[in-house]
């Protein structure tokens, strides 16, 4: 049964329950019909045969009693008259012909004298049709009942009665019964199948409803089933819907918490970035103040003045670059635009404070000549998070790398670190499609969650190209805008 319904080669694997149940009902009905019809026909056959034998016996008894005196006298007319009258009296038996012979097996008279003329021997082939052992012989193919009885008078056989009855009416009754059974069963089966289909559809309606709500939850937050819908259902489905609603509440609550956490994380990372920036700005400030002091004290000296102004210019340029890239990254009023090599180069500045703190080396290989048709802001944000994560994971003095290329109509960014590799559940989280619906866990991995959310938006995917004791390489693959439209 398993392979029949569920096996790959099954011919009904995709049928819905609403169809499968009526089909099972139809098969069961078919089996029952065959069994019942068989039994009914067998009983009918038995009854018909018993009735026929009883009727034949009564016919032969009646004939024998009236015929014996005439057969003793070999009275042709009396024998004929008896046979002729018996035809009317035993109409139910539908006797085709009857013949009475004397002890020499010569016909005294027959109901059809043309066929069996008086005084002539009954043809051997006719006699052979009858059984000496069986008084009534049924020939269902010939639709005949053949009767033969010896006429015994004073312990001697004085003659025989041969008779053939037409039993086609019985056969007709059987075929009529069979036809009626088939028609009734077909009608009943169709009715049950229709009822089965209707009720299964009705019963499965709540399942469809639930399925619809679950499907909608993929598009956004999960919505609860309204109370009026809930009240319409029976006990089982009301319970199920109530549990679904409870689950919806829990999931929505968790999402809300996760969003709050993400916001906190964002703020934290902004804080970190701000402190890094302060640090970056502070570094040249010392030199710049030194340069100002030198200018104040030795400004009259040409070489001191030139050097101090260059130092001030360098310091201010550094600060201006930092401010510009920060503005580029975090400006909220940006319109969607394509990614450029500069966007990725800027990331180097943004992770630099983090890298410096951990004494990490940065290796940037940006191989982009023209703007890439992917949304610049989310892609850069995703890469920034991957890079920050890489910085956190790397051991002191390690190497953090970014490689970006366009290959096969896809933008590929590879972020590598020199850490100890990813735990399996993190790797699974990164690679699982649609995992961006919720964070990895409540306390960690919010950066990765942001990456996953961007991936879902961009229809992008993550691949863990390498993850071992020597480090990890995560590959972000984003289809180009034209490809996305094509794919859509």
């Amino acid at each position: 049964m398993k392979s029949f319904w569920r096996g790959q080669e099954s011919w009904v694997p995709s049928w819905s329950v609403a169809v499968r149940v009526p089909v099972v009902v139809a098969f069961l009905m078919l089996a029952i019909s065959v069994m019942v019809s068989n039994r009914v026909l067998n009983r009918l056959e038995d009854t018909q045969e018993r009735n026929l034998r009883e009727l034949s016996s009564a016919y032969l008894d009646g004939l024998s009693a009236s015929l014996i005196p005439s057969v003793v006298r070999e009275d042709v007319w009396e024998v004929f008259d008896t046979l002729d009258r018996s035809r009317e009296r035993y109409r139910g038996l539908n006797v085709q012909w009857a013949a009475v012979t004397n002890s020499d097996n010569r016909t005294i008279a027959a109901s059809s004298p043309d066929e069996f003329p008086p005084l002539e021997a009954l043809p051997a082939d006719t006699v052979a049709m009858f059984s000496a052992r069986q008084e009534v012989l049924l020939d269902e193919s010939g639709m005949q009942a053949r009767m033969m009885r010896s006429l015994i008078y004073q312990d001697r056989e004085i003659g025989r009665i041969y008779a053939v009855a037409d039993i086609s009416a019985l056969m007709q009754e059987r075929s009529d019964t069979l036809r009626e059974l088939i028609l009734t069963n077909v009608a009943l089966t169709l009715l049950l199948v229709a009822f089965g289909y209707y009720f299964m559809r009705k019963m499965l309606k709540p399942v469809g409803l639930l399925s619809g709500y679950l499907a909608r939850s993929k598009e956004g937050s999960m919505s609860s089933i309204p109370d009026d819908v809930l009240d319409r259902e029976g006990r089982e489905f009301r319970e199920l819907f109530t549990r679904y609603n409870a689950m919806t509440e829990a999931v929505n609550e968790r999402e809300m918490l996760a969003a709050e956490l993400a916001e906190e994380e964002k703020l934290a990372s902004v804080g970190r970035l701000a402190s890094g920036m302060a640090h970056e700005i502070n570094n040249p400030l010392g030199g710049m103040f030194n340069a100002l002091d030198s200018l104040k004290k030795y400004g009259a000296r040409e070489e001191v003045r030139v050097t101090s102004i260059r130092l001030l210019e360098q310091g201010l340029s550094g600060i201006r670059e930092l401010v510009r890239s920060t503005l580029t990254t975090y400006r909220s009023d940006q319109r969607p635009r394509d990614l450029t090599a500069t966007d990725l180069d800027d990331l180097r500045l943004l992770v630099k404070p983090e890298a410096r703190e951990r004494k990490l080396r940065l290796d940037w290989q940006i191989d982009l000549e023209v703007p890439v048709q992917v949304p610049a802001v989310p892609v850069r944000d995703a890469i920034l998070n991957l890079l920050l994560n890489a910085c956190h994971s790397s051991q002191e003095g390690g190497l953090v790398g970014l490689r970006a290329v366009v290959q096969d109509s896809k933008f590929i960014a590879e972020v590598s670190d020199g850490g100890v590799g990813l735990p399996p559940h993190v790797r699974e989280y990164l690679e699982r499609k649609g995992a961006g619906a919720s964070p990895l866990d409540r306390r960690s991995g919010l950066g990765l969650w942001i990456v996953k959310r961007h991936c879902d938006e961009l229809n992008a995917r993550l691949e863990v190209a390498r993850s071992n004791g020597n480090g990890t390489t995560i590959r972000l693959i984003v289809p180009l805008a034209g490809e996305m439209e094509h794919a859509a």
Partner: protein
Amino acid sequence: MPNMNNHVGPRQQSQSSRRQLLGLAAGLALPLPRSAVASDGPLKFGLTPVFLNNDIELLSKLKDYLSRQTGRDVQLVQRRTYEEITTLLLSGQLTAAWICGYPLVQYPDQLTLLAVPLWNGQPLYSSYLIVSAGRQAGSIEDLRGDLHAFSDPNSNSGYLVTAALFAERGLRPEQFFRQTIFTYGHRNVVRAVASGLAQSGSVDGYVWEVMASLEPALTSKTVVIHRSELLGFPPVACLSRQAKDGDVLIMQRALFAMAGDAGGREVLKLLRLDGFAEEPTSLFDPIAAKMRLVRSLTL
């Protein structure tokens, strides 16, 4: 019980029967002579199986009519063969009986003619030789070797006429036919021939004609290939020695009155007859001649 006292010799009875009946017809309104006073028992009227074997309605109407007309209880006595009825009549157990011309001429001294039915206005009928329809038989000679159905060995039309036909050629029926059977009823002869049991048969012409109108499906399976000359119709007779008994006379009077009575006409209509008439015994002389011819060959 019939009155046994008024004994008249057979010959004398035979000769005087016509005169007696005429006298009776003339003096219907007169009181019966003392010797002719009716007895108290039921009147017994014998019937040979002429053609009305199954006609319960006819028997019932005939009985009603006779009872009403005679004012007496009437019993209709039926037997399978002519011989049985003739024997009952000869032994004085019947008041009168509707027999055949052949028994009448067999016992001219014991039996007296009471009345003769009129068919098509005549007291005459004939015997038919019939064969199965569709059979190519143009003459009597074609019937040689047949299984032939007779009605009754004491029937004029159902045996004697055909036996006389062969006697004229010096043959007995059993010498001409392969086998002969007696069906003890004219209707049965028609059935035997129609079914093919017998290839030919001798039947009462009156019975065949009446059957042709009542049961055309049966008679249409037979064809008449020979009709005999007209002979005296099967008569009603009584024992000669009882011919003057009151019981016999009231029975005779009832028969003659049948055509003038509504109930009687119903009976006659069923029988397809016109009435009963007084006829001379000589009407049956041709039958007596046939009997003598047949006897001359067999005895």
